[in-house]
Every structure is written in C-alpha cells, then in structure tokens.
C-alpha cells in the first residue's frame, strides 16, 4: 500500500521498514512505481523466511535433496554466498536458526518487544560452505539442519534490481531506498542525490555534516538501534555474529558504507558491525568509503568519506 505519492516520490511500508522511490522526472513516477511493486513482491515471494508459501520456506522443507531454484532466488543465493566468502563468513546466510533461536522468528511487526522468558542458547551458524550451490544449473543442495536467512543481502539486492530496472525502463535518474539501503541509477540530479546518514532511516538527520551526496552506486547503513527486542531482561537485535550465534557485540552503533552496488555496501556495513574494532582497517583495505559511529558517539571515517575535521580517520 502506498503511503506517500507526491511529485517525484513514492513511500510505503515494506519488510518492517520504509521503502522510498524517487525519480528525476516526475512523469516517470507511475512506471517506476510499477517496477518497485513488482520487484518487492517477487523478492518477498522468493526470499522471505516469514512466509509459509515463499520459495525459501519450501526449500527448507526439502533439505537434503538437490533442487532447482528460480532465477531470482538463484541470484539472491549467489549474492548471499558471495558476501559470506568475501567477508570470511562474517556475513553468513546460514544464520537462520541462530536468528530464530534469539527470538526473531516472525515479522518484526508481530514480534513481542518484551517478554519474560529467556531465549535459547546461541546457535553458531552451521557455515555457508556447507551449502552446495551451482549457479549455472541453479541446483541447490541444502544440508539438513541448515536454515538460510537472506534478509541482509536480499533487501540490498532488491534495491539494486529496482533502481537499475526502473532507470532503464523510464530513462531517468532513480533513487531507491529500502529501509535505508540506498541504490541510485541513471543520471543523478545536479549536485548528486543528497542522503542523510544516521541512526534511524525513518528520522531525518539535522546535522549537515551527516549529509552526503552520491551520484552512482549504493550506500547502506547497518545498525543495532532498530529491530530490537528484549527477552528476560536482555536487549537483543537482528545483527547476529555467525561465529557465536549471538547478537554482535555493541562496538559500533551504526556503520554506513558506500560501494558500487547496494549489495556490496550492505555486505560491508553488516560485516563492520560484526567485526567491531577491526572494521576500519578492513574497510580501508577494501577501499570502501565508510562512516562508523561507536556506541559512545565517536565517529570514525575511512578514506573517501567526506566529513569535517575532528572526526577520526581510520
């Protein structure tokens, strides 16, 4: 359902957060909006672990059997496994059981925010290397006991797909933001697309220093300030360290990364939250511009991220 459709933009609720579409030419909005709705529905039907009729849910029921998956799920799997490989398993799609053990077993809107009962003991991820995947034939063999959660990379993939397809179809510059995972495509407006960067994608940033412009690629922010719940007095959030199965240590409050695609930006920003203190060095090595905010408010930027003096450079 569309919440806002004014001039050059459409906003709606999707996947427990906000989806926004902005076009350079307002006349192109209806056509771009059709791409947005079509892709959101397709990615949800393929990748949502909260839907009993989604392709990935059916896949879990066929664990232990080699199956052929749809082209869209194949792309999502390839992206997720590549993210795991490029982060040495710090971003791992086999955290499905771990996330569920922490209580995140349904859509966030339906999740009790505070409950007295404790969660299960943390379940380390079985490991992405257990998944046998052939992208050429789209054949997947998921071992018994391995549950996938494509949440992080699938949302970013959707932003990439929508922005690129919409821009190609309508022939103008397009910005897509899915829960703060941003991708732009086509000709950017003069001065670039202006993005506020902060703790919460739904609240406009008032600090001019936290506003950047991009003309190409993607920008994603991962953080532990949203998608939180409480069990037996313990605060939990949705970013899981696959190595322990527990929530990632709270070293960074948010990590914002710019990259060639939203998938790469999201992969790096999620990895940064899990890596903690090691993240700035890793991001520098990847040559990814980034802005990290520690839980105490300290800001660290890597090379390429604009900012005022006074903020630490990695």
């Amino acid at each position, binding site marked *: 359902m569309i919440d806002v459709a004014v001039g050059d933009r459409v906003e709606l609720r999707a996947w427990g957060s906000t989806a926004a579409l*902005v076009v350079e030419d307002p006349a192109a909005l209806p056509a771009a909006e059709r791409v947005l709705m079509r892709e959101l529905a397709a990615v949800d039907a393929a990748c949502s672990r909260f839907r009993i009729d989604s392709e990935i849910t059916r896949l879990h029921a066929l664990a232990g*059997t*080699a*199956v052929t998956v749809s082209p869209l799920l194949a792309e999502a799997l*390839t*992206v997720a496994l*590549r993210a*795991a*490989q490029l982060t040495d398993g710090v971003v791992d799609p086999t955290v499905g059981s771990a996330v569920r053990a922490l209580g995140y077993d349904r859509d966030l809107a339906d999740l009790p925010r505070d409950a007295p009962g404790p969660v299960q003991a943390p379940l380390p991820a*079985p*490991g992405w*290397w*257990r998944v*046998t*995947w*052939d*992208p*050429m*034939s789209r054949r997947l*063999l998921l*071992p018994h006991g391995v549950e996938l959660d494509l949440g992080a990379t699938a949302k970013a993939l959707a932003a990439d797909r929508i922005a690129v397809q919409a821009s190609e179809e309508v022939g103008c510059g397009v*910005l897509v933001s*899915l*829960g703060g*995972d*941003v991708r732009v495509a086509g000709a950017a*407006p003069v001065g*670039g*697309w*202006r*993005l*506020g*960067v*902060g*703790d*919460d*994608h739904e*609240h406009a*940033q008032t600090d*001019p220093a936290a506003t*950047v*412009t*991009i*003309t*190409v690629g*993607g*920008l994603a922010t991962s*953080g532990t300030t*949203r*998608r939180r719940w409480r069990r037996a007095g313990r605060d939990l959030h949705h970013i899981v360290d696959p190595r322990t199965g527990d929530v990632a240590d709270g070293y960074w409050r948010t990590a*914002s990364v*710019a*990259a*060639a695609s939203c998938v790469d930006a999201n*992969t790096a920003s999620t990895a940064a939250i899990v890596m903690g203190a090691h993240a700035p060095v890793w991001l520098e090595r990847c*040559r990814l*511009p980034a802005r990290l905010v520690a839980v105490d408010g300290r800001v660290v930027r890597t090379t*390429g*991220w*604009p900012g005022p003096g006074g903020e630490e450079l990695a």
Partner: protein
Amino acid sequence: MNRPEPNHLRRRAEGRRRVGRATGWTAATGGVLAGVFGLAFAYDMPTATAAPAAVASAASDDDPVPVPAPVTPPSTVAPHRHHASPTATLQPPAAAPGPSTGGSRHASSGAS
C-alpha cells in the same frame, strides 16, 4: 671362541638374500598399489573447480546427494569458485560520496 662355522655363515648369507628378494618384491608391489590407488583417488576427488559440475551431474530430485559436513571451515582448501560472483572483491563506488552543499535530502540511510 664363538667363531662362526662355515655352514653357519653360508646359511646366514642365504637368509639375507631371501630377505632381500622378499623386501624387493614387497616394495615393488607396494609401489604399484600406491600408483593404482593414487590414480583412482585422483579421479574420484573433485577439485575446487570441478566440484560444482560433479555435484550437478550427480544430483537429481530423486537422488539426494550426501554432503560432507565439516565441523570447522576448511581453511586450507581453496574457496569454492562457484560461490564467487564475477567480482571477486567488494567493489568501491565509481565516485566517492561528496559533501552536501545544502538543499533538502532525497532520502535517509540509517538502521532499519
């Protein structure tokens, strides 16, 4: 005293020859068997690049393929090539983000 008799020396020399022949045959047989098993395993063991094709050809909906389940990551094994996308590293943007010179924001990026 304790001087070996000639017959005793002959028997000892003959024994050494027999042991030598047996050892030689054993070594030769072992070498041949090692070669045979080596070749057999070399054909059975998929390499990192051959693994996807081997799995794909062996797999069918009716014929589940058992998957080895290592307890820890095979750190010394080369990464599975079929998991890599065309870009083998995370790609930086073609143009770095710039500072804003003012104006309303098109969108916000934050935790969701």
